[in-house]
């Protein structure tokens, strides 16, 4: 998770999920005790050259293809953390539960907090 200034209420979480199975898996969201909500977001690009605008759009899920990977990385697709209730310091670990489909499957993670998060 990216650490952000105390005045900022949203941040992002990055990681890579590898799907070793033969079926599609989708990351549908997550939750953390330190924020109001956690939502999958895709990076959007429109326009060309210096006028190219970067933005993001909320999506229902992010797919992990069979035998493939889902990479969430700075400047790209990510889990957006909204409404931070506290601002963990660099080096701390945050509890995160992510939800995967099919089966509404929950996985508990501890994500390290960093100014320069590496996926």
């Amino acid at each position: 998770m990216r650490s952000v200034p105390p005045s900022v209420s949203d941040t992002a979480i990055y990681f890579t999920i590898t799907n070793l199975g033969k079926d599609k898996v989708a990351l549908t969201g997550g939750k953390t005790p330190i924020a109001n909500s956690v939502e999958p977001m895709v990076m959007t690009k429109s326009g060309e050259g210096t006028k190219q605008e970067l933005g993001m759009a909320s999506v229902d899920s992010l797919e992990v293809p069979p035998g493939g990977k889902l990479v969430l990385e700075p400047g790209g697709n990510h889990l957006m953390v909204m409404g931070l209730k506290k601002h963990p310091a660099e080096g701390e670990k945050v509890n995160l539960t992510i939800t995967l489909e099919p089966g509404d499957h929950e996985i508990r993670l501890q994500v390290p907090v960093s100014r320069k998060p590496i996926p």
Partner: protein
Amino acid sequence: MSTSIVPNQELHPNEHRPFWSNWRIWAAAVALLFALGISILFGSKQAAQRGYFGQRLFPPKEAFDFNLINQDAQPVQLHQLRGKVVLFLFGFTHCPNVCPASLTNLAAVYQKLEPEQRKQVQIMFLSVDTQRDTPTVLKNYVPWFDPSIIGLSGSKEAIDRTVQEYGGSYEIVPGSSKDPNDYGVNHSAYIYLINPSGQLEMLYDNEKLADTDRMVGDIRKILAEKR
């Protein structure tokens, strides 16, 4: 004898004329100059780019002298920064992904420079979010990345003019709720390097900023050839 000379002159009609009257020589000279011109033009463009990590503007062009406000609510004009390398970018403080990544990466570049070089480098972040990002908001935001960073805001008119002059772009994207402060901002994310003479010299897309060493290399090179 004279009768034999005349047919010879006819066979080689230019033999006794000055060489510059021959069109073939002129054509060859023009072609040579043309080729030379092309090679100088493209050769120097390549030479200008060679070794630089960013996309170099050659020749560099006068950067638009914006008139904005810093996080202490003081006016800032670009020309006040003459003598420094200015790294200029657009964004907004509610940006969860791209802006903090760019500012963190730029801060890492700045911190890797020698203290003497840091005095000649200024990072400037212009918020295009006129509704939410006041100087106070910026004061709580930019110094967290590095205390040296200047956070700029201003009138919508001044900001729009600046974005336009730098060839950037932004757009307000309304959120799903009725809250007037629920919106996102799509924005261009190029980083502009303005040289110590106030000229726009280098462009970086936001992904390049992660390569701290090559960014530092470009800045050192530009400071070394300071005009």
